[in-house]
């Protein structure tokens, strides 16, 4: 093809549009104001402390990665203070984040809710404007006691703990519902061991908060009993209805994260993809588990409020992959901790690992199609 032929061929792309409508040009003086504002902004950013939280232990300024193992008070003018107890391992992760490996901390904050975060091996405590004591055992379990305000305790479940209540973190990461400190010891013990029969009669009016929190993980039959007991303690509102609908529907509605809330948006897709890439690195470098070499992360669904991320994994052996998903869920806090170090999000979403059945289903459909084809060939 010669040059003329190419010109003829490519002339279809030639620029032909007339000049666009030209808007009003801004006055030059505005440019000067904008330039001055930009310079001012640059100066402010340059002199503003890079680490806004600016945690200090005495006169020593903490740097990200510093570990504190001795009893000391650390304080930040924008967050508040944290008293570190004896036999405690606390790491400063940078910004407004601490990691409590074990031991006890007493935190009192002045910052707005949701800013100050403490990660533990099994859960994350999000300060909602409060004062609390968090104790973690070497096995990862522990207890959160709230003296003022509220604290959100998250992993794949969530416990919102109010003033005067505590939440217990089991060594496997399960969170108890909030339990008021002044409730009967027998009631607390029954709730922790999941004994509904013993717990319900011991509940007081104030313990209705604990009972409501049990709904999420209860069976439909248990929900009815919890509902009746709660209603006896606290009068239901006029529109309140006893949950007598289809049991399957109730279970789906209450135990699953709302499907609509997991809808994909441009942002959740982008965050999901970033998380997927970061999790691949976490699997490869941070988690010392050789089985993860055979696992692929097929998708990450993220809730629009970034509170939950469903991670779909697949592998060659379905049973083994399901087992890996279970194991990953049991160490959710640890995985999220590593993930938090590899992505830049204000709050790292809770992780829920699931076996991705798409591949297995596709294989099943493929084999069915082949079977049909064989039958057709025979006939």
């Amino acid at each position, binding site marked *: *093809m010669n040059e003329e032929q190419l010109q003829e*061929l490519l002339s279809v792309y030639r620029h032909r549009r007339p000049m666009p409508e030209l*808007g009003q040009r801004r006055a030059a003086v505005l440019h000067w104001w904008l330039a001055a504002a930009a310079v001012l902004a640059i100066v402010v950013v340059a002199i503003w402390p890079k680490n806004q939280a600016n945690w200090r232990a005495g006169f020593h300024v903490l740097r990200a990665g510093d570990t504190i193992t001795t009893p000391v008070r650390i304080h930040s003018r924008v967050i508040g203070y944290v008293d570190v107890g004896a036999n405690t391992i606390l790491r400063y992760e940078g910004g407004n984040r601490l990691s409590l490996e074990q031991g006890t901390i007493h935190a009192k904050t002045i910052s707005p809710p949701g800013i100050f975060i403490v990660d533990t091996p099994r859960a994350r405590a999000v300060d909602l404007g409060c004062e609390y004591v968090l104790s973690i055992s070497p096995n990862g379990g522990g207890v959160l006691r709230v003296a003022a305000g509220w604290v959100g305790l998250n992993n794949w479940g969530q416990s919102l703990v109010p003033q005067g209540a505590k939440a217990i973190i089991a060594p496997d990461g399960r969170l108890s519902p909030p339990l008021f400190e002044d409730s009967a010891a027998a009631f607390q013990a029954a709730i922790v061991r999941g004994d509904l029969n013993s717990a319900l009669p011991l509940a007081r009016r104030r313990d209705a908060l604990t009972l409501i929190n049990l709904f999420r993980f209860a069976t439909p039959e248990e929900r009815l009993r919890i509902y009746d007991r709660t209603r006896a303690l606290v009068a239901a509102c006029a529109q309140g209805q006893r949950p007598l609908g289809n049991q399957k529907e109730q279970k789906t509605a209450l135990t699953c994260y709302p499907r609509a809330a997991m809808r994909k948006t441009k942002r959740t897709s982008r965050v999901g993809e970033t998380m997927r890439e970061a999790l691949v690195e976490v699997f490869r470098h941070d988690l010392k588990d050789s089985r993860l070499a055979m696992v692929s992360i097929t998708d990450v669904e993220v809730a629009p409020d970034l509170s939950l991320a469903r991670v779909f994994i697949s592998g060659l052996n379905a049973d083994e992959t399901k087992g890996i998903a279970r194991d990953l869920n049991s160490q959710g806090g640890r995985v999220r901790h590593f993930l938090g170090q590899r992505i830049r999000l204000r709050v790292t979403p809770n992780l829920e690992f699931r076996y991705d059945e798409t591949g297995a289903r596709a294989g099943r459909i493929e084999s069915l199609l082949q079977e049909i084809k064989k039958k057709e060939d025979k006939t």
Partner: protein
Amino acid sequence: MSMSARPDAELVRAAQAGDTASFEMLYKKYAPVVHSILLGRLPAGDAEDVTQNVFIAAWTKLTSLRDPAAFAGWVARIARNAAEDHRRRSGDTLQLDVEYATKSRQAEAAEAAHALAAIRALPEAYRETLMMRLVEGMSGVEIAERTGLTEGSVRVNLHRGMQLLREALS
């Protein structure tokens, strides 16, 4: 493609003072150059839109151009930056150039899209010069005048670019 004999600097000064007729002359002269730069980086439909945006931005910022004679390089820089911005914003969206043609000329359009893709794969110096030559139909002198390159450089770029393009299309 004969253009006004008025030099760029004079047109730019008049446009800086608010004369839209002078800016329109600049537009007619440089829109093919800007479009060529963008077409080498963006899908055809986007290149048209972004060309318009580049000139709107140029009109808005024209008062900040200190050397009126440097308009050619200045507007080309705006175009390259706009292309990068547009690519970043649109992510990995794939737009087929073949859709740009009318259905009655689908086979020809596919061939044109193939040729366009081959030009895009060339090094930048050859790519932009060839776009101006083959797509916009500009002469070597016009390309040299509007890009600031010497006529010799344009000739060399066109020759080597055509050679590479023929190899790619053969």
